[in-house]
């Protein structure tokens, strides 16, 4: 009987164990599914976060300036503090924002969007504020082997960035790159009025687009692999632009008249061409020789100023028994003419890597901002003329009072407009030699020791008293100091920089 009971009980016991196990398995399965869902959600969030890339660098340095005409002659500074945010929501779409967070304040260096439509494949459209298409401009300051860009690049492309739109074409099978940009054109430029205020403003915002002219910039580069570790990249670039004339006369680089019937708002053309190359060779470690040459025409808008003074006088002529009361406004107008001038310049780099951590760099750069005038003509050559004739617009009213005649003279006198421009420091050419040693502690930290030696063009131009006409002037500790351009004076800068990059 007992065995019967056991026999009857056994299947129901094993059934209940099976049921319990099944329940447990189901419970574990549900929990695993739950964990799966959470992992998928986290993966999806991580996937989105992975699309955001943050990078940046800080450059802190000590500079010693020789012969500086301002105070101090040596200082520590934070040269650059950049943080770049890049978001790629999908293949071929990119948003980039890069602020500069320096002690001088906040500045937006880059802010652009890049789109690459699948049907266009190798063409990208950029819009916003981005680097102008030029080798030294696009070569990041964090990678550049010497502390600062060459003089010609700083002059032609101040601030490096411009606002506009750009198309970039890089076919996959050919090592070719074509860049064409349409830009506002006035980005970073400074042209001052008589009071020293920057005229490159609109609605009180510096560098805001202020005319209808748009500049076109193009660059084409090709890469050759010559074998045996030698590679050559070479290319050509061009710029077609214009600035708004802000004076009614335009002169040429040699300070002779170009046009005297210019309307304010007319175009002043600035066009140039350039050629570049970068040669890489594996010679006991990496080595490169890089260079660029540019020539063309640049433009500088002039300005118009006017001033007036009102003089009130009373005088008595006892003999004629006449009292003269005069109230005369004298108006003076003057103009600095617009100028268009030819320029040329370039640079050559030699960079040698020594092992993994050390690097030596030498750069020679040259820039002549005005090739139409040189040496002893600088300071002497000038353009001076007057426009219009003097205009006198006075009225005289007589009245008598008993024994005296009262003569009242009023009105205005407008003097002939003076137009003047004199050659000077802005026409001086420079050759600059820069030596640098870089030590890479690791991929994030780099030390740079650099010495920059600019050599100025000389001019012996003097006035009638024998004083040199071309000089820089400054005040140091209350004492006025001069650097005369009759000789090459030292303007060297020693820099010790630490860069941290992430």
């Amino acid at each position: 009987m007992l065995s019967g009971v056991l026999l009857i009980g056994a299947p129901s016991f094993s059934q209940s164990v099976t049921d319990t196990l099944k329940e447990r398995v189901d419970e574990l399965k549900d929990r695993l599914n739950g964990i799966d869902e959470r992992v998928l959600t986290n993966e999806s969030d991580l996937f989105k976060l992975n699309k955001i890339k943050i990078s940046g660098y800080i450059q802190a340095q000590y500079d010693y300036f020789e012969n500086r005409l301002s105070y101090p002659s040596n200082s520590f500074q934070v040269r650059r503090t950049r943080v770049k945010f890049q978001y790629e929501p999908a293949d071929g779409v990119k948003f980039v924002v890069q602020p500069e967070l320096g002690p001088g304040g906040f500045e937006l260096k880059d802010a652009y969007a890049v789109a690459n439509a699948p049907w266009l494949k190798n063409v990208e459209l950029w819009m916003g504020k981005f680097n102008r298409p030029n080798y030294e401009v696009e070569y990041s300051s964090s990678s550049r082997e010497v502390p600062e860009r060459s003089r010609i690049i700083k002059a032609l492309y101040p601030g490096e960035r411009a606002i506009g739109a750009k198309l970039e074409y890089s076919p996959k099978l050919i090592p070719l790159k074509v860049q064409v940009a349409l830009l506002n054109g006035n980005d970073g430029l400074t042209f001052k009025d008589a009071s020293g205020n920057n005229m490159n403003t609109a609605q009180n915002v510096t560098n805001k687009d202020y005319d209808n002219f748009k500049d076109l910039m193009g660059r084409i580069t090709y890469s050759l692999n010559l074998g045996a570790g030698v590679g050559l990249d070479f290319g050509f670039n061009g710029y077609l632009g214009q600035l708004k004339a802000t004076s009614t006369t335009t002169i040429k680089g040699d300070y002779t008249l170009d046009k005297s019937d210019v309307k304010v708002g007319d175009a002043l053309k600035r066009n140039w061409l350039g050629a570049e190359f970068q040669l890489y060779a594996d010679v006991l470690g990496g080595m490169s020789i890089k260079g660029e040459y540019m020539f063309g025409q640049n433009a500088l808008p002039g300005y118009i100023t006017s001033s007036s003074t009102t003089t009130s006088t009373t005088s008595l002529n006892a003999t004629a028994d006449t009292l003269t009361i005069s109230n005369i406004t004298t108006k003076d107008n003057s103009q600095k003419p617009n100028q268009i001038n030819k320029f040329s310049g370039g640079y050559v780099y030699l960079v040698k890597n020594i092992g993994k951590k050390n690097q030596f760099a030498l750069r020679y750069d040259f820039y002549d901002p005005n090739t139409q005038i040189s040496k002893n003509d600088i300071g002497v050559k000038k353009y001076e003329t007057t426009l219009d004739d003097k205009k006198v617009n006075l009225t005289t009213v007589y009245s008598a009072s008993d024994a005296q005649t009262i003569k009242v003279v009023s009105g205005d006198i407008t003097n002939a407009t003076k137009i003047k421009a004199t050659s000077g420091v802005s026409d001086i050419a420079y050759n600059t030699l820069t030596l640098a040693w870089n030590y890479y502690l690791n991929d994030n930290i780099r030390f740079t020791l650099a010495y920059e030696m600019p050599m100025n063009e000389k001019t012996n131009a003097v006035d009638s008293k024998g004083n040199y006409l071309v000089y820089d002037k400054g005040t140091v500790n209350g004492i006025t100091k001069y650097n005369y351009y009759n000789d090459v004076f030292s303007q060297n800068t020693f820099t010790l920089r630490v860069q941290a990059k992430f």
Partner: protein
Amino acid sequence: MKTRKKLIGIAIVLVAVIGFAFAPIQKITVKGSDTMVIVAQKWAEVYMKKNPNISIQVTGGGSGVGISALINGSTDICNASRQMKRSEIDKLKGRYNTLGVEIPCAKDGITIYLNSNNKVSELTLKQLGDIYTGKITNWKQVGGADADIKLYGRENSSGTYVFFKENVVKADYAPSCQTLPGTGAVVNAVKKDKNGIGYGGAAYAEGIKICKVKKDAKSPAYEANAQTIAKNQYPISRYLYMYVRNKPTGAMKAYIDWILGPEGQKLVVETGYFPVK
């Protein structure tokens, strides 16, 4: 006199032996392709046995990770299952002023993994592209069962991901494609999923069904093997590369020369890849 000379000779030999015993161990780091990590580890193991004063450290992470490590200096040799992109060469130029040295070291046929129970046995390149872009979503569209296709692939730092995208998919991967961190993970996923499809190096194809690939509907279908790779018949074949920053010298040159020599290439075949020549 003779005894003195003997003693001096013995002393010199002793110093040399002791000196070599304490010769500094030269370290070579290798980083990059997950496709190549198995063969790279085998190379390192065998070479270190023969050269005890050389220490070789091998890690994976993907071709993209290896190339970044080459650029930032944290690896001596980068393994890559794709060629370096122009932008990566530009970064190498910027940092080291070199183009880098590309060394093809093996050949591979990207194998299409199917679950063992999948009825489908061959696909054209276009079908593969349409599957991975999401245009074909059901196995019945390519002669299989009526079931949704589950896509498995690699993350975008993988050279295999890039190569497959550029040569087969030719567009964006379907959003439903699950990214996995390594070819081994792709194989495991397809092994467990009867509707799964994956891709990766030939050396990892174990426990799954290998799908033959045809250039187009009219061409014959081929499986990746030494013959079809050597004759360029298999449509998705590629070189596997080592990259170094400068022309290799010293211990690194000796190691690379050994990899390209008969012993190194024998290990390539043993791992499931194909010799470079």
